[in-house]
Structure formats: C-alpha cells, structure tokens
C-alpha cells in the first residue's frame, strides 16, 4: 500500500512535467502573441516597445531556453503573474479561489454519492418496476442533457420563478465584513452540479448490483433463507461498493469540468469562473496553471480510487503489496 502511494506520488512530477512541456509547446506553436494579449487589442505598440517587453520577458531567447527558464520557475512554485487580474501572482489567485470550488465540488460529490447509492440500490432491488424504469429513463436523459441547460432551467425555476433560492454569488451582497458562504447560496449550484453528474453513479450502482446479485454467493445466501434486503445490504452492496469507490475517484475530473459551467452560470467565485474569465481575457498563465492543477486533481483522484479499492477489497488488500 505504501509502495503504491509512493509510486504514484513519484510519477506525479513526471505527468505534470509532461503536461507542462506539452502546454508550453502548444502555446509556442500557436500564433498566440503574448505581448498583444498583454497590452490588449486596442493599444497600439511600436516595435521598440515590443522589443523592450520581449527582452524583459525573455521572449527574444531561443525556445528551449525559454522553456527551461519557465520550467525552472514552475519547479520553484512560481506560476507566473496574471495580467488580467492586475498582475497578481497566479498561485495566490488559485489559492484564493480554490476553497470556494472545493466547497462546491465537495458538496456536489457528497450529494452524488448518497443519491446515486440510494437510487441505484432501489432501482436494482425493484428491477423492471416502474421505479427502475423511471430511474433509468431519467439517468439516460440526464447523461445526454447539457449540464449548462439543466442549470439554466433550475435557475429559472427555483430562483426566478419560485424565488425559493438565491441564484447568484456565494453570499448575500448586503452582508458586510469578511467574505463568507451562505448555505442557501450553496444549495442551488451544488444540487445542479450533483444532478448533472448523478446519472453515472446511479446507473453504475444499479448495474453493478444486478451483476453482483447473479453471483453464487448471493444464491448461497438465499439458500439459507435470507431475505431480499438482508442480501442487498449485507451481501451484495459491500461487493458493489468496491468499484463504486473507483468511479468516485475518477469522477473528480468530471466535477471540475462541470463546475466551470455551473460556477459561471451561478456566479460562484471559484476556479470555474476563474477559468472562464481567464479564457475570455486570454490570460495564459492562469490557464496553464489551471491545466496543471487539473492534472494534479486527476492523478489524486485516481490514487484515491486505488487506495480505496485496496482498503475495501480483502482479496486485493492481501494479494498485493
């Protein structure tokens, strides 16, 4: 187990390095002009100023040297400066926004896990009943439905038409003092993010359970006169939960992608809106940093999935170091 974690943590820099090099090369290959992006489309710059900026940024050096210097700064934790957000260091910007995103994604993940487990278990227990058909139909619709559209409909229904929940921001704008989070502001974006992701989990639980219910050990439990729910909870679910944990770990990345759209729509001041704003304002250092950060999240999610799998499955726990 320790070897697994250590091995994964050792490959993390390799993956990050590869992502960094790739991003850099793509930025270099694209005709993207950092100076133009810096000064903005409206400002006219003469060649002398351009050269000056290029020299200050090291853009006049050969490409490999530029890359080496950039990577060197990256290793030291210097992600560059955002030109969109007043030259703020990108690292501070990310650290500033991360808590809001983690809160949103964490709440959504909790909702998804609980909801998927309950709905998937009931659908499997009452296979081919109206409930099962409802869950399956809703899940398939859900997978095909664009998440931002679902968010718009929810925003309209619960915030604009019914007025039950606030539909923008993280806290009441009238409140003063330190920035804080109001629960009622969290409910709508977190639920929508959960709803747009839940179908995977629900169908997964249902289908895995149905597979497990065909196993010999389930028939053996039945042969001893055990009832439906005892078999479901004490014999089938513990087995079905093992792959479920893997799915949750792998799904962290999907939540991140979903939060870009959901945060933008609900004005949630997290990494998602940061990505949108940085993209619209062509703030390359921020975008590169987010790319790297999302790789870290994916690797961490996969690691979490593997560790969870090993902890839950006694066969793997014993068999492998």
């Amino acid at each position, binding site marked *: 187990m320790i070897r697994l974690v250590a091995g994964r943590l050792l490959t993390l820099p390799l993956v990050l390095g590869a992502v960094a090099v790739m991003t850099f090369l793509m930025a270099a290959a694209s005709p993207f002009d950092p100076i133009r992006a810096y000064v903005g489309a409206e400002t006219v710059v003469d060649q002398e100023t351009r050269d000056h900026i290029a020299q200050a940024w090291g853009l006049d050096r050969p490409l490999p040297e530029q890359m080496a210097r950039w990577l060197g700064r990256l290793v030291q934790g210097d992600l560059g400066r955002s030109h969109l957000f007043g030259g703020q260091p990108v690292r501070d910007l990310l650290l500033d926004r991360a808590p809001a995103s983690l809160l949103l994604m964490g709440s959504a993940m909790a909702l998804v896990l609980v909801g998927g487990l309950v709905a998937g278990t009931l659908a499997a227990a009452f296979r081919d009943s109206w409930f099962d058909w409802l869950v399956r139909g809703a899940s398939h619709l859900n997978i095909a439905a664009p998440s931002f559209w679902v968010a718009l409909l929810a925003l309209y229904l619960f915030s604009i038409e019914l007025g039950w929940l606030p539909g923008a921001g993280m806290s009441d704008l009238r409140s003063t003092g330190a920035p804080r989070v109001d629960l009622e502001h969290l409910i709508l974006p977190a639920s929508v993010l959960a709803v747009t992701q839940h179908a995977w989990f629900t169908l997964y639980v249902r289908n895995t359970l149905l597979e497990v219910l065909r*196993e*010999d*050990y389930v*028939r*053996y*439990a*039945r*042969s*001893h*006169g*055990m*009832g439906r729910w*005892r078999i479901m909870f*004490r*014999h089938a679910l*513990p*087995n079905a939960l*093992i792959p479920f944990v893997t799915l949750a770990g792998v799904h962290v990345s999907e939540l991140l992608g979903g939060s870009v759209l959901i945060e933008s729509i609900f004005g949630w001041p997290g990494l998602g809106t940061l990505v949108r704003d940085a993209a619209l304002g062509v703030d390359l250092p921020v975008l590169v940093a987010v790319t790297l950060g999302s790789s870290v999240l994916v690797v961490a999610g996969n690691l979490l999935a593997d560790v969870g799998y090993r902890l*839950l*499955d*006694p*066969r793997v726990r*014993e068999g492998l170091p």
Partner: protein
Amino acid sequence: MTGVSVLEVEGLTVRFRVPRGAVQALTDVTFSLGRGEILTVVGESGSGKTVLAHAITRLLPLNAEVTGRVRLDGEDVLALSEAAMQRLRARRLALIPQSPGAALNPVRRVGPLLLEIARVRGLPRDEARARLGGALRELGLAFDAVAGRYPHQLSGGMQQRVVNAAAMAAAPDVVIADEPTHGLDADLVETTARQLQAIAAHGAALLVITHDLRLARRLGGRTAVVYASYLVELRPAEGFFTGPAHPYGRALLRAMPEHGGVPIPGLSPELTALPRGCPFAPRCPDRAPVCEEAVPPPAPLPDGGMVRCAVHAGG
C-alpha cells in the same frame, strides 16, 4: 424403502425460456427420500443435475418454468409464497453449494458469515456459536481458526468444510449437496464422503448431486442416473454398481478407469432439441425400433428400483 418420506418429488419438469426456444433441463423426475437416507444423482455435466437442486430449493433464475410437485412432509413446496419459502429454506432445507469458493462472499469474514447464517436459521446467538463450533470440530476445524479469515485465505478443502458446517449446524430436514467433491483430491473426497454420511446419520435426508461415480458408490444408499433431462435409472447403490439395468448406466460404469475406461460413443443430445424417443437411443448398443418412437415409461425393477428402458424393462 425405510421410514416415511420427507421429500417427495413427482413429475418434476423444468424448462428454461431462452431467446430462441426452450432448454429442457428436467423431464418428469420422480423420487422420494426418507430421513437418514442418501440418494446420489449421477450424470454428465449439462444433464440437468444442478437444476434439480435449485428446483427443489426454488433458486432457479426467473426464466425457468417449473411443473410437477415437490413435497416436504406433504407440503407443496412449489405452491408456497416467497415469504413462506424463505422460512422453509431457513428452517428445513440446506444447500451445500457447487463451488464453495464462489459461494462464500469474498468481502465477508467467515466467522461473521457463519454466525449470520445460523442466526437466520433461527439459532439463538450463544447456541449458534456452539453449534457451529461443534460442526466444524466434527470436520476437523476450529471455529476460531477460520472465523477471522476471508474465504480466499482458506484452502479449497477448508472452504468445503465451512459450507458443510453451515449446512449441519442448524440440523435441517433435507440437505442437498451439489458436486461436493468437485476439484478435491482423493484424500479430501474420502473426508467429504465421511462428512456427508455423518449428515445423514444425524437424521437428515441427503440428496447428493455429482458426476463422480466413485463417490456415489462410496456413499451407498440409492443411486439415480440422469441422462438428457430424464431420470433413466434409480436403484440401491449396490444393485446399480453390480448390475446396472439401463444401457447408459452400463456405459457409464464401463467408462470408469477401473473398468477399462471405455468412452461412450457419440454425444449427448442438445437439450434444446430432444428426440421424440428415448434420448439415449442414438448411442445405444441395444437399440430396438421401438426406442425411436416414444420415451419409455419408468418400469419397476425387482430390487425396488426403476429403469426407463423399453428393452431392459424386465431387468
């Protein structure tokens, strides 16, 4: 036959609906079994033996169509509600599964699983522990030695003894053992045979399903032969192993290594398309024209047995 029958099976027929047609798994199977008796059902794999175990315990998949009668002390098992069937399985029936390795839940420790089984079977907590301990001790295992382990940490022989103990602990009226020696080496086969005889000696009616003819001979009692969904011969074991009445029974014995290992020519018929006449006729050395016309009815034999053969009906 000794004593009153506990289990009576009459005209049991099982078909599986499949996308194209139906698979005939059992046809018109009739037998009865008393307390302390052993009946061993032998046949090739795919002949319908395991279906018999699952039909009696009503554990067949949903696409199975079951007709006929299964009575337990006169009560019609096939007519029971699911809840009543559940109680019946818990209190009166026990199934020793085909492959214990797959039947023991991989993420459950053996001890808690056994205790849960015993509790579901109606034993109070203290008694459950004592009875399981006793059953395992009889089989040469200590409860504490296996309780904390997961199934994959036990050897095949230990897994077999665990499921045997689970069946013995609650002293059910009928025990059905499905291929109890599958994949075991000769020593363990002998041990298992002794365990099974012990179960019968405790007063249970024991139905053993196997493809292992030597186990059938070793167990004694009566032996039944299944071929292509039919029960073709049912005899006291001694009579069957000294002089089988059905040509298929003779062929089976000749195929045993100690009797020359002569293979049976031809193949078993597909269960999706059984012939109109005797299913063994195409492979039978004693085939007569009458064999192709209809499946012969069961005919009594002098030793109280039965044979389904038009040519050898008289013994």
